[in-house]
């Protein structure tokens, strides 16, 4: 009976669905929302844990938390190596993408913890809200990611060459400019689709969990269990997909810069194979 009373207590208010974060208080006119407080907690945990792990790093993994962080960063560096083509580039761009992966994964997973949402209340507003369940947050993350991609691409190939990657083709042809403007527009579509994908997956996962907890009434934990397990998968998958897509954009932006070299290599390879074929026959 006590069990039923607890779930009844939680469910009594009906499903409350928030798409936006709530403002808790102002500091000099700057609104501080509940998702910002959650983000501060998350970044504090990330900084403390990652610095501790980095100091404890040994050649033979000791186990504990270190091995999970090692496995995650190795996973990301393998992903980068596959997409960018060399170990050097993977180690060069690895730190940013690995940090992004851990931050997004941690803030997604902590969003499922009890206490996030309606449980803790400050002036009738929920005190904590998952950071990635806030469109401003995911927009900020993707703006940072894609600006860094642009910066890396410009550093790798020079400004003019990077611009030519959008406006490829002959300069007297007006079609070049139309295609170029379309490509630049596509960059903004990428930005919004990255932000919306992360936000919608997490926010809608929360809504689905809330709705099924409401429908379950007294057996809410049972009806919620499948969706919670699904959300655990989705949280890690979305962090992976965000990093994977931004790495793909980076590799696209970098690869175009040395297309000419690749062509030459291809030609060389073709002539070599032709020579080999002709000599053997």
């Amino acid at each position, binding site marked *: 009976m006590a069990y039923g009373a607890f779930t009844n207590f939680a469910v009594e208010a009906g499903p409350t669905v928030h*798409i936006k974060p709530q403002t808790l208080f102002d500091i000099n006119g700057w609104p501080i929302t509940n998702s910002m407080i959650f983000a501060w907690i998350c970044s504090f945990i990330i900084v403390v844990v990652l610095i501790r792990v980095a100091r404890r790093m040994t050649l033979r993994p000791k186990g504990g938390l270190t091995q999970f962080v090692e496995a995650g960063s190795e996973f990301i560096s393998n992903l980068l190596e596959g997409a960018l083509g060399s170990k050097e580039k993977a180690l060069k761009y690895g730190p940013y993408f690995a940090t992004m992966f851990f931050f997004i994964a941690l803030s997604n997973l902590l969003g499922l913890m009890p206490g996030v949402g309606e449980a803790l209340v400050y002036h009738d507003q929920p005190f904590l809200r998952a950071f990635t369940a806030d469109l401003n947050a995911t927009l900020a993350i993707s703006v940072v990611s894609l600006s860094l991609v642009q910066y890396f691409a410009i550093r790798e190939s020079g400004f003019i060459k990077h611009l030519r990657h959008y406006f490829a083709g002959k300069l007297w042809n007006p079609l070049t400019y139309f295609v170029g403007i379309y490509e630049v527009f596509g960059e903004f579509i990428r930005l919004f689709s990255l932000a919306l994908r992360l936000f919608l997956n997490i926010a809608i996962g929360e809504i689905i969990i809330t709705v099924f907890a409401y429908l379950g009434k007294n057996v809410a934990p049972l009806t919620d269990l499948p969706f919670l397990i699904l959300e655990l998968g989705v949280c890690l*998958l979305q962090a992976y*997909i965000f990093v994977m897509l931004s790495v793909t954009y980076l590799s696209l932006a970098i690869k175009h810069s040395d297309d000419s070299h690749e062509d030459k290599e291809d030609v060389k390879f073709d002539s070599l194979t032709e020579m080999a074929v002709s000599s053997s026959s």
Partner: protein
Amino acid sequence: MLYLSEITGSLDILGKGVMMGFGMIGPGIGVGLIGASFMNAVGRNPEAAKYLGQILVFVAVVELMALLVFASLFIIK
């Protein structure tokens, strides 16, 4: 006597239902095609199973449309 003008209710609930129904058709077909071609590829060449991670990325790209439809439920008033 039945007067049609006396039927009251809100059409936005009907609209939401129609939107969910039609909006989920496209992403459903898309995810199905991706899964089918992945299974085809694995059936032909079992070593292709290692590309599951990249398949999930494409699933996420298609899934965005379904999520947009779902999110519109809460935006439409």
